[in-house]
């Protein structure tokens, strides 16, 4: 199977989904890289559940302050217009419906948009963090992930076998091979990675994919 996009390019493609004026929460891991690919003329305000709105890039070594971090505990910088608040307020913003987009990682996504991203069965313990709060209330949930497991098994499945984070919550899936929308009629293949065919995407996707009328190659 072709490997498709690198992790950085997945993040770059996800960044294109964010619009000027969006309030956005980024999950730990690949999603945090999305903040590096926002064009200068697009103003996206990043929210983190540890109590900050309006942070910028990851801090350089000489700028690091242990009191200023994102949800992944990486040192960050402030942008003009930033604000601090406590964790209860951070989640009131989430459940209250003020966050436009969450970009999260996943272990599995089902054809109905069920998300499993907090625990794998092979481990007896996992981390819920803010993910369950985000998926029930954020206007749009975008998943960024590798299309298959390291052993080549599909991560986009008919039914999730790992413990769920939420049911019917995912809107868009961006992988190294494709961009797939979750619709009431099932999964819709909208874009394929350069040199990857729709048949190749289907061969590593468990549910049947419908092809979008304007199916095209990903633009980055």
């Amino acid at each position, binding site marked *: 199977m072709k490997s498709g996009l690198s992790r950085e390019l997945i993040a770059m493609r996800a960044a294109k989904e964010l619009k000027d004026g969006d309030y956005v929460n980024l999950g*730990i*891991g690949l999603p945090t890289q999305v903040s590096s690919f926002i064009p200068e003329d697009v103003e996206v305000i990043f929210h*983190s*559940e*540890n*109590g*900050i709105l309006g942070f910028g890039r990851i801090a350089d070594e000489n700028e*690091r*302050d*242990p*009191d*200023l*971090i994102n*949800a*992944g*505990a*990486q*040192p960050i910088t402030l942008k003009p217009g930033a604000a*601090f*608040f*406590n*964790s*209860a307020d*951070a*989640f009131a913003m*989430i*459940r209250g419906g003020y966050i436009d987009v969450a970009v999260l990682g996943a272990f599995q996504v089902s054809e109905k948009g069920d998300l499993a991203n907090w625990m794998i069965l092979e481990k*007896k*313990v*996992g*981390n*819920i*963090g*803010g*993910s*369950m*709060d985000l998926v*029930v*209330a954020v206007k749009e949930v975008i998943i960024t992930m590798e299309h298959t497991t390291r052993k080549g098994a599909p991560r986009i499945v008919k039914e999730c076998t790992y*413990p*769920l*984070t*939420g*049911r019917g919550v995912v809107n868009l899936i961006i992988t190294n091979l494709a961009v797939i929308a979750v619709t009431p009629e099932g999964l819709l293949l909208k874009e394929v990675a350069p040199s990857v065919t729709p048949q190749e995407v289907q061969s590593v996707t468990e549910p049947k994919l419908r092809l979008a009328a304007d199916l095209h190659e990903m633009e980055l």
Partner: protein
Amino acid sequence: MDKVVSSAQEAVADVTDGSTIMFGGFGVSGIPFTLIRALRHKGTKNITAIINNAGGRLANIDLAVLVKNRQIKKVIASYPVYPWFVSPFEEQYLKGEVELEIIPQGTFVERIRAGGAGIAGFYTPTGVGTVVENGKEKRSFNGKEYLLELALAADFALIKAHKADKMGNLTYRLTARNFNPVMATAARITIAEVDEVVETGELDPETVITPGIYVNRVVKGEKYEVRFE
């Protein structure tokens, strides 16, 4: 009024075995390192720790200090372990030596907020359709399902703030605020570790985040070096 005590050891002197203790902090920020070290020294056993993460990233100064010394009986957390290494807590948990209650983070902090505000419980949509709903009352409001979640309170809250005056009014720095002001409200005894103690009247009332009514003791913390990976 003077809530300042002279040492962390004195601040935790009455934290007895079996206490339920909230610990502030998220990631590497806003953790009461000095009070954790004082509890290690005191040796309080069978602690139920209410904390976002069970420690290990800064294993020589965070909650892992108490985990390694077998002082923790149970952890109530939202992000207990790490995806990229096995912490002392995870090691003990996998051997069945310590208990864990895992809670979505927004529910975790809202239960603490309720605990401090005289609210018995609340309905939240978070966790519907997942293992989180097991054993909980589910109720529909305007066609949407919610779970009943109950308040969470503690015997002690050990928190970290930036400045305190002698009345226990507190200010915070940057993202070191996180759970600290919420936990300050939800314990019988709240102990604040701070970078700096100032005279009453020196804090601008507009900048006070935790009013002193919530704080029982204030102690000046030691400086700990926090390194990023």
